[in-house]
């Protein structure tokens, strides 16, 4: 029996600050060579699902470029494969997607000629390895109309998730979106398996409701549970992480540097596929050093790297130090420069002797105190950081700023913007 999955990949990811300023959250680089969506796409193909629609909306270009024809996932096929579904004009209902449910509703036509009994709805924002076959088996065995994959979260973070209450058979008896507190700690993972006919009926019904936000978590699931539909929860016990904020993005990446990483990325039976450029192996020069770190092909290391994640093509020149940092593709860290607790986006040039991340971390960022206050420092894509400049913690250096946009040193919590900044 054939299977079909929608992957929701249109989110703004606004709490990721500069990292998602110019790309959708699923396209944000992760784990030293991957993009966040690689985990979900690889889960699909490793579970035998080779027919996928990716719903995009916010800044889809880097995602489109990354997925392309779907080659790395063996999705470049004659039948099925991967299709990028951008909002469009011309059909009966056509507008920007109003919510997750509306995004699927506007693409129901793609279910029309597919011989499927269920529809898998996934989110492209999460880091996990899951065999969806187990979800299908559970769904069938429980005679569910919709099965929601759930994971246990700490009591203090229930307010960030959709929280479900379920009986011993898994039947869902309560659903609250981001409750202040709850007795239950079962959070929805944003992984839903629907009976196709029920899904079509529920979406059509929801589309008529003027007061609905057309969202699965906020609107549809609470309504279905309240009126006693066959909603079931399937417990997922392995690692699952939503990298929604800058702090969790940073922490989740660095978790992979531990002696026992949360997911085995080298597992030959569950490969995380990704698009990769033709780059030579890592070149360690004389005087280069790297410990407790990930360093990807194409990097050249002549300086020191400690507890950091370096994406392909990063150059660390001699005397430079990269510490507790995440450095994305093709960044050059000049001679004697220091990065400390920094997240540096692609193609950044850090001038010789520059010091990024010093001093106190008590001053939150001036422009975005809400998500840049823990001592991290963010440098946007393509920025040119002048030599010998000193940048304090919680600072934000905008994408594509040039040396002229810096008026000397940047204090803790400071902001450097340029003509191309978007905030």
């Amino acid at each position: 029996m054939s299977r079909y999955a929608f992957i929701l990949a249109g989110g703004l990811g606004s709490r990721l600050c500069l990292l998602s300023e110019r790309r959708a959250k699923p396209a944000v680089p992760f784990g030293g060579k991957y993009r966040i969506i690689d985990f979900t796409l690889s889960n699909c193909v490793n579970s035998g699902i080779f027919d996928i629609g990716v719903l995009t909306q916010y800044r889809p270009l880097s995602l489109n470029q990354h997925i392309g024809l779907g080659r790395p996932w063996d999705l470049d096929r004659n039948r099925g494969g991967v299709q990028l579904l951008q909002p469009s004009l011309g059909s009966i209902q056509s507008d920007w997607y109003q919510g997750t449910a509306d995004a699927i509703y506007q693409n129901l036509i793609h279910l029309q000629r597919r011989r499927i009994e269920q529809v898998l709805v996934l989110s492209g924002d999460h880091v996990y390895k899951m065999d969806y076959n187990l979800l299908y088996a559970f769904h069938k065995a429980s005679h569910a109309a919709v099965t929601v994959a759930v994971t246990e979260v700490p009591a203090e973070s229930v307010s960030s998730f959709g929280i479900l209450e379920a009986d011993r058979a898994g039947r869902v008896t309560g659903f609250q979106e981001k409750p202040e507190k709850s007795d239950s700690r079962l959070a929805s993972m944003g992984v839903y398996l629907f009976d196709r006919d029920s899904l079509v009926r529920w979406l059509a019904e929801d589309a008529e409701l003027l007061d609905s936000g057309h969202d699965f978590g906020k609107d549809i699931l609470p309504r279905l549970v309240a009126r006693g539909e066959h909603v079931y929860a399937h417990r997922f016990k392995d690692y699952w992480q939503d990298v929604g904020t800058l702090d969790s993005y940073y922490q989740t990446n660095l978790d992979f540097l531990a002696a026992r990483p949360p997911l085995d990325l080298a597992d030959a039976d569950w490969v995380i596929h990704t698009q990769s450029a033709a780059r030579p192996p890592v070149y360690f020069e004389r005087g280069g050093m790297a410990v407790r770190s990930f360093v990807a092909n194409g990097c050249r290391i002549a300086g020191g790297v400690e507890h950091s994640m370096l994406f392909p093509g990063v150059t660390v020149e001699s005397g430079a130090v990269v510490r507790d940092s995440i450095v994305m593709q093709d960044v050059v860290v000049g001679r004697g420069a220091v990065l400390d607790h920094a997240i540096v986006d692609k193609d950044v040039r850090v001038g010789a002797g520059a010091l990024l991340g010093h001093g106190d971390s008590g001053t939150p960022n001036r422009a975005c105190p809400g998500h840049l206050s823990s001592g991290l420092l963010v440098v946007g894509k393509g920025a040119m950081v002048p030599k010998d400049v000193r940048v304090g913690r919680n600072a934000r250096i905008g994408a594509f700023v040039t040396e002229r946009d810096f008026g000397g040193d940047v204090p803790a919590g400071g902001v450097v913007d340029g003509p191309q900044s978007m905030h």
Partner: protein
Amino acid sequence: MVGLVLAGGGGKALSVLTAERAVSAVPFGGKYRVIDFVLSNCCHSEITQIGVLTQHAPASLHDHIGAGRPWGFDHRGGGVEMLQPYLTRSEAEWYQGTAHAIARNWDRIEALGAARVLVLSGDQVYRMDYRRMLMVHQRRGATVTLAVTRVLPQESRRFGMVQFDREGRVTRLEEKPRRTEATHASMGVYLFETAALGELLRDRPADLVAGVIEPLLKAGEAVHAHEFTGYWEDVGTVASYYRANLELIAPAPRFELLNPRWPVLTRDEERPPVHLGEHADVEESLVANGCRVSGRVRRSVLFPGAVVERGAEVTDSIVYPDTRIGPGAKVDRAILDKHATVGAGAVVGWGDPPHDPAHAWLDGLTLIGKDAEIPAGARVGRGVVIGIHAGFDGLPREIVAGSALPSRAWYEGRV
């Protein structure tokens, strides 16, 4: 222009490294196979029809090349074809030589309808734009053009040496001369007019130089030389193979793997980034994705999935994919084939190299065949060759310099 890559060689000179793979399939440069350089040259030179002639242990080559995706050969109506020896009702012959291999597939090659055939060797490392050679070939109206490169006088005995006049017209060919006035070696890169090549192959010569190019030269045909001045290395011997690998990590390497305009393309291994542990100490080395390093590595090349445990030391060595160097083990001047294990505290490359000239070909290096397991605490001398899947059962824990352990079939002792 159609490309024919000669990749059938078994290369006895590479010992256990080519016992179960063709020379062209030997790993090189931390993530590549030797043939990747020629296939990438073809790709970047916009040659889209390729035949790869295989004979010796072709499985690893077929597996590596597949439909030719990494080089863009997987296009409609063309791409890459693997040409293996085959049986007919009247013939049952292995390829007897380079010319014979081409002749046996001539129907297929001619059917591609290309005006010219570029014959290449899959055993060499270089970066060359064949379109420039084609331009020279056409401008001079040559029947065949040989790519030549300057070599040191003392190396002439390894090569076919070529003498040519100021217009580039070849005047004399010498096969591996001890002494010669010629300064340039043939690179084994030949551009033929298809019709002329087909004509001479009718006499079923075995060798391309003796049976095709020499007769053309004698007949007064236009045989030209095209000088190539870039880096070029034939990796046919243990010493040249080893040197070419280690040269990549010299401070100013003669050959740069990193070249965004002319990248070396290969099959993606789909491995995570290199993981460097708490006590990792790596300098002057190439380390590929999928490696895990917690020990000390100096002047070495580590292929995907190689593991260097804590306290281990790897110096001046080449470690193939998924080989594991156990805690506290020492590896010095060795080439370790894939899926081998060096047990905790073992030493590979121990003591002095053998003095016997019979071991000179090893250049003091130690070769470890694939799947070999060096037991914990064992000591393997220099100039030792450990066979594929070799076992140490009933043997001393010290293998003295210059000895060898025979290969075993993987099922030996199981059935």
